């Protein structure tokens, strides 16, 4: 875990001229739920593409082989922490083999929306042994930089509630009364597996409404995950960016750091 450089690409760079001019880069964005990661990854991607870099993005739980199992698992009876942990690692491993490594080998920049650290944080928060979890992920590619978008769990709850209200209002405004109940029942995961033509309906309802106890347990879990991230900050040398700043400001800081990385400054 101490090795900072992307190893495979490094050793091949001298031999293969096609990637010698540009080092492959794996850039990771981490942070608790609602820290703005996904928004920032998209903005970063657009910016890098505009600079004529070749970019591949990869997000947690998107391996076609595994995401389906995870969706089913989440909608069915509760699975045990070990099972969850291993299924998420299967997702990560599959994306490593099919998305991340091939893209890096092609000399592209890979932007990862969540990486192994998400698993470390969540699995530890669920009571699993961190050393065991890290072993499971032993074969991951080492990122060149890990940005940690820091927000407090309290901020996450505020953002979550605001998001819920916003979605609810959009629902009431945009949809015929008969469809509202149905749309609200759909979970984030069920939505993802839908056919594209349903997107118009599901766009406005991706999060289940949390209140009372559910909101409390959301907060408790975010607290635990947050504590894990805080600890990992030092262990893994995260580059910390304050995520409660305006989107533009966060993005500007990210771009500066990424530019320094790409230009080897």
């Amino acid at each position: 875990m101490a090795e900072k450089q992307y190893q495979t690409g490094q050793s091949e760079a001298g031999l293969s001229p096609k990637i010698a001019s540009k080092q492959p880069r794996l850039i990771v964005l981490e942070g608790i739920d609602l820290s703005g990661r996904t928004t920032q990854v998209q903005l970063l991607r657009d910016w890098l593409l505009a600079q004529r870099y070749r970019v591949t993005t990869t997000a947690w739980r998107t391996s076609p082989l595994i995401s389906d199992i995870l969706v089913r698992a989440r909608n069915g009876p509760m699975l045990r922490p070990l099972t969850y942990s291993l299924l998420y690692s299967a997702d990560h491993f599959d994306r490593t083999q099919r998305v991340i490594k091939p893209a890096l080998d092609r000399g592209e920049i890979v932007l990862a929306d969540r990486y192994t650290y998400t698993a470390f944080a969540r699995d530890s928060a669920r009571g699993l042994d961190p050393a065991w979890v890290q072993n499971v992920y032993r074969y991951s590619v080492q990122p060149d930089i890990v940005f940690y978008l820091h927000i407090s769990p309290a901020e996450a709850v505020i953002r979550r509630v605001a998001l819920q209200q916003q979605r609810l209002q959009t629902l009431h405004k945009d949809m015929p009364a008969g469809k509202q109940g149905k749309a609200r029942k759909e979970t984030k995961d069920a939505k993802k597996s839908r056919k594209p033509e349903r997107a118009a309906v599901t766009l406005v309802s991706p999060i289940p409404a949390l209140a009372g106890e559910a909101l409390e347990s959301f907060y408790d879990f975010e607290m635990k995950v947050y504590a894990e991230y805080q600890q990992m900050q030092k262990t893994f040398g995260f580059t910390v960016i304050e995520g409660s700043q305006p989107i533009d400001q966060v993005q500007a800081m990210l771009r500066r750091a990424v530019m320094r990385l790409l230009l080897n400054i």
Partner: protein
Amino acid sequence: MSAEMNTQAYGSSFLIPHTYPGRLIAAEGLDGSGKSTQLHLLQFWLQAEGYEVLSTELTASKLIKRALKAGKKQGSMDPMLLSILHAADFAEIYERDILPALQRGAVVLADRYVYTAVARDLARGVDRAWIEDVYRFAARPDLGIYFQIDADQSLERTLSHHTRLKYYQAGMDLGLSHNPIDSFRAFQQRILHAYEHMIDTAPYELLRLDAMLSVKQQQRLLREAVEKVLPNE
């Protein structure tokens, strides 16, 4: 659960002994080695003796079947990915069924346990240290029995039971041969090698049983071994 995981304290051994009131008896060995028959007989006997018995199997659950099918369709499945999926499947059985049974004092009869899972992964070329660490959450059996037969005997007995060899059972994902029978034999040979290595490195974790003995003889030897590990009334 996590507090009981301890990967350092036991040196070169693989699984770590448990302290639950129940007992765990694991039967390992190649396909067709007669494990299931012997476990059935053990189960009747133990139940007649008044023990609560839980029987488990190492078969792919619905959870991962879709992924396995998809991998088969693609004609390739990364061995490590296959390992992780199998481990996830086993973890669910372990935490849901095996662990609670051990905690309430039942006798668990595992028709294949971690050793077979790991032997199969090793036969597919997965890194030993990594996969052993992955399975380290599981308790060491109080009695682990290795039903010994060779690859040809395994093939012969398996073919007499099943009309067709299954894709992963025959190790077809490895591309050893287009012929399922040849593939099965080569795959079993590798698994056999992996079992032998385990017995060599941690002999106290797996006892060898000659699975060519008669059903009766095997059962007698088994009961003797099981009696030694049963909780004292």
